[in-house]
């Protein structure tokens, strides 16, 4: 667990300790204050606190779901502060959007879209640099010299001419009541970095290697009860009648609690809550429109919409005149690509712990989500109260991949309602079956790609994505701001890395047929499949090598060309297909670029694809933590291979048909490829690493299958049945 992620440790540190607190507004530090020894902790709206005992606390404004930002973000502050990293304590931020909100999400506290490092980079550098400048100013005053004569080393200010030295802790104790804070302090040159660049071990790794990390599932508070929730089988239904007589007679069961879309069984023991849920009989309403949800029918409708050229889409990106360019080309090429619903499958199922105050208007809550802001909103809306009455603890997540982003978080709500009803702290935990059945999915989509070819040259590019809006469902408040631009659906279809002077990418808005959520790589997890598989089809039509065809579109993009050149060299591109074959894709996420080559074979009897090796080169600008960046790309590739080969949610009569890992399999170690990742060292602003590994994977596999078999796979996942159908 991170230091200070519990209130207790934060208080115990600050109480009785002289500490400097730097309050940072959008323009940087706007105030400095000093806690007297007797003073209680200062307001939490600060990035850096320096104690007289040399401890340095740095606020971590995102939440940790495995990507390592709980180390990377504070490291940026520590770098500019020139802090002694071993003295730095990382403090999980639990609230306060106004001070700490992610600038890329309208100042909402929101950990998503690989934005942690690049969204906060400038803010955190400035915070660290200003804090360092203040310490230098205090030292200058103490030494009676000009600040320009002073330098810092990790944790101390030095006056080289005289050899005098004061540690940051000593300077914190010397701080006057007011200090002038420079608005524009000097920032370090990258060659002076001590922490950014070298491999500093992620702070959370030791506790995650011996079982001592605390996840929300692990929270135990005195008097805590357990709840299992029987949820309405179909979205929109509600409990009409509850027969709980037998359940209430069971040992250790305390109560049943009706919820808007379910019934909770609360018990003194987790096993009793689970048994009570299994024995519960509920009559549900049966009139919800979602009863008609059917994944097969949805995809058929989306396919029709993608191909219905009379149906206009919301423009996602346009340049030049795609239609005219395609029409005037010598030849037109088109293809339709399909993708099914996919589930996050984070290994930690949903859970939350709540302890509602006696008056019902305050609560202590332990939650693990990607957004302090929307978790706080869920709590205050559920209780009809205000944030000042809430003590919220944001816990590290056992994986998330977009799952825990919604505006309304029913798992948090249910813990609150159950706790309020029984007057005791309650831990709500979901079974795996709950997590699958009541998941929120990557949307199914049908995509129509059209392009022209004149000679071997691409001429015009039209990418139609037929899918429902994800944002409209998982965050209607956000939809009101951005409609009709749905980045969660459309990302990747902008194909921005290539020179495509005549392009139209549009979103054909279809009816929603499932609960939806962002998923690792968001839209790019399927739009890049379509775009890069289609690029391969065009190269084939043009009679050009797939890498050479792409290079011709990257004449303006030197960094992109470098990635393709390197991945070609690493993978031994150009060898003729044999038992295995290679396929390439060039994709990325946002402004981060990636080139990947997959080596595949197929069992022609069963249709099972095996991915033997995956080579990837990545350009994400400046990389704060290189080894962790490699780990993120490795993980993103495994996620991509899994989604390419296996993952598919189906829905019938409004109910999800899968249950657990036996019928929603994810990639096992025995199925994982060897992975080679090379991250380019680039002197450019950081652009995000958490999702860049995923989008290239599916098209690289599809393209390798074409190289091996001469057949195109245009419906992901490439299950053995679909592969056999393509081969026959």
């Amino acid at each position: 667990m991170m230091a200070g992620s519990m209130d207790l440790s934060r208080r115990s540190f600050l109480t009785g300790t002289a500490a400097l607190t730097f309050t940072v507004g959008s323009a940087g530090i706007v105030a400095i204050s000093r806690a007297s020894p007797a003073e209680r902790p200062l307001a939490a709206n600060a990035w850096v606190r320096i104690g007289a005992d040399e401890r340095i606390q740095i606020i971590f404004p995102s939440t940790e779901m495995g990507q390592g930002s709980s180390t990377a973000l504070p490291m940026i502050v520590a770098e500019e502060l020139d802090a002694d990293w071993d003295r730095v304590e990382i403090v999980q931020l639990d609230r306060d959007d106004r001070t700490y909100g992610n600038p890329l999400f309208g100042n909402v506290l929101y950990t998503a879209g690989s934005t942690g490092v690049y969204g906060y980079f400038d803010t955190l550098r400035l915070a660290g640099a200003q804090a360092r400048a203040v310490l230098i100013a205090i030292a200058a005053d103490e030494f009676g010299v000009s600040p320009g004569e002073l330098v810092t080393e990790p944790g101390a200010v030095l006056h080289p001419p005289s050899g005098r030295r004061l540690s940051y802790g000593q300077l914190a104790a010397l701080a006057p009541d007011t200090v002038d804070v420079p608005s524009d302090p000097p920032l370090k040159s990258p060659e002076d970095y001590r922490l950014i660049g070298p491999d500093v071990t992620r702070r959370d790794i030791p506790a995650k290697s011996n079982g001592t990390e605390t996840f929300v599932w692990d929270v135990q508070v005195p008097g805590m009860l357990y709840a299992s929730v029987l949820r309405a089988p179909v979205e929109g239904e509600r409990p009409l009648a509850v027969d709980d007589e037998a359940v209430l007679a069971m040992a250790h069961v305390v109560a049943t609690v009706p919820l808007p879309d379910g019934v909770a069984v609360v018990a003194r023991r987790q096993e009793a809550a689970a048994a009570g849920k299994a024995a519960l009989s509920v009559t549900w309403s049966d009139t919800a429109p979602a009863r008609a949800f059917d994944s097969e029918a949805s995809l058929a409708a989306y396919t029709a919409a993608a191909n219905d050229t009379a149906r206009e889409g919301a423009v996602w990106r346009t340049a030049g005149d795609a239609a005219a360019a395609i029409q005037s080309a010598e030849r037109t090429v088109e293809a339709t690509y399909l993708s099914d619903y996919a589930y996050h499958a984070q290994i930690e199922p949903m859970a939350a712990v709540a302890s509602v105050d006696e008056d019902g208007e305050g609560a202590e809550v332990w939650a693990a989500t990607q957004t302090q802001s929307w978790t706080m909103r869920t709590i205050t809306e559920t209780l009809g109260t205000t944030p000042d009455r809430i003590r919220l603890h944001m816990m590290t997540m056992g994986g998330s991949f977009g799952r825990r982003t919604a505006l309304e978080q029913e798992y948090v709500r249910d813990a609150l309602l159950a706790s309020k009803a029984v007057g005791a702290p309650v831990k709500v935990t979901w079974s795996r079956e709950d997590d699958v059945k009541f998941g929120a999915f990557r949307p199914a989509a049908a995509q129509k790609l059209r392009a022209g070819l004149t000679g071997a040259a691409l001429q015009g590019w039209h990418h139609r994505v037929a899918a429902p809006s994800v944002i409209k469902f998982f965050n209607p408040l956000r939809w009101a701001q951005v409609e009709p631009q749905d980045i969660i659906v459309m990302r990747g279809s902008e194909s921005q890395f290539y020179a495509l002077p005549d392009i139209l990418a549009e979103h054909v808005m279809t009816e929603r047929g499932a609960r939806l959520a962002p998923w690792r790589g968001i839209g790019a997890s399927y739009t890049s499949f379509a775009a890069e598989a289609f690029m391969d089809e065009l190269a084939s039509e043009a009679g050009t090598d797939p890498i050479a065809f792409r290079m011709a579109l990257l004449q303006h993009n030197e960094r992109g060309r470098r990635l393709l050149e390197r991945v070609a060299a690493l993978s031994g591109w150009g060898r003729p297909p044999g038992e295995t074959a290679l396929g390439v894709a060039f994709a990325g996420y946002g402004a981060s670029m990636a080139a990947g080559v997959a080596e595949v074979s197929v069992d022609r009897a069963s249709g099972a694809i095996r991915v033997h090796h995956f080579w990837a080169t990545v350009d994400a600008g400046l990389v704060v933590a290189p080894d962790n960046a490699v780990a993120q790309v490795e993980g993103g590739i495994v996620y991509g291979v899994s989604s390419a080969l296996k993952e598919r949610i189906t829905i019938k009569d409004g109910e999800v048909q899968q249950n657990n890992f036996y019928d929603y399999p994810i990639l096992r170690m025995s199925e994982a490829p060897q992975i080679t990742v090379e991250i380019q060292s680039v002197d450019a602003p950081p652009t995000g690493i958490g999702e860049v590994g995923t989008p290239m994977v599916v098209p690289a596999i599809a393209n390798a299958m074409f190289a091996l078999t001469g057949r195109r796979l245009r419906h992901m996942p490439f299950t053995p049945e679909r592969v056999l159908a393509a081969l026959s």
Partner: protein
Amino acid sequence: MVALNVNGQSVDVDATPETPLLMVLREHLGLTGTKFGCGMAQCGACTVHVDGRSTFSCITPVAMAEGKKVTTIEGLTEGGHPLERAWVAEAVPQCGYCQSGQIMRAATLLDENPKPTREEIVAHMSTNLCRCGTYGRIVSAVQRAAQEA
């Protein structure tokens, strides 16, 4: 009452015989390093040792552990363990949720086969899922621990 021996300590647990060992360890005894993932022996997050064998505690009735030695991640790593050090050195964990189970699973491999090949590691470890995709690093960490031991 069920009499257990967990991490070398005898403890009586007030649980019905069919209660999953996992729930007893986590919620009755507070040994939360062992995780719930699927409840069906599909993911391995719940892996503990019962008499030295890797066991899915989520499907093991607590009564079946009576009279046997149960070891959890807390017991294995008390005082440090080569696998724990290797996991840190190879920077294996991302979200970390599955890693206790991975380490417990790896430990029984090294007990039986101190110098496993890559193929043997993969075959043994494929019972355990990792959604963050740390498989390559798990193999490296097991190899590192095998060299150290």
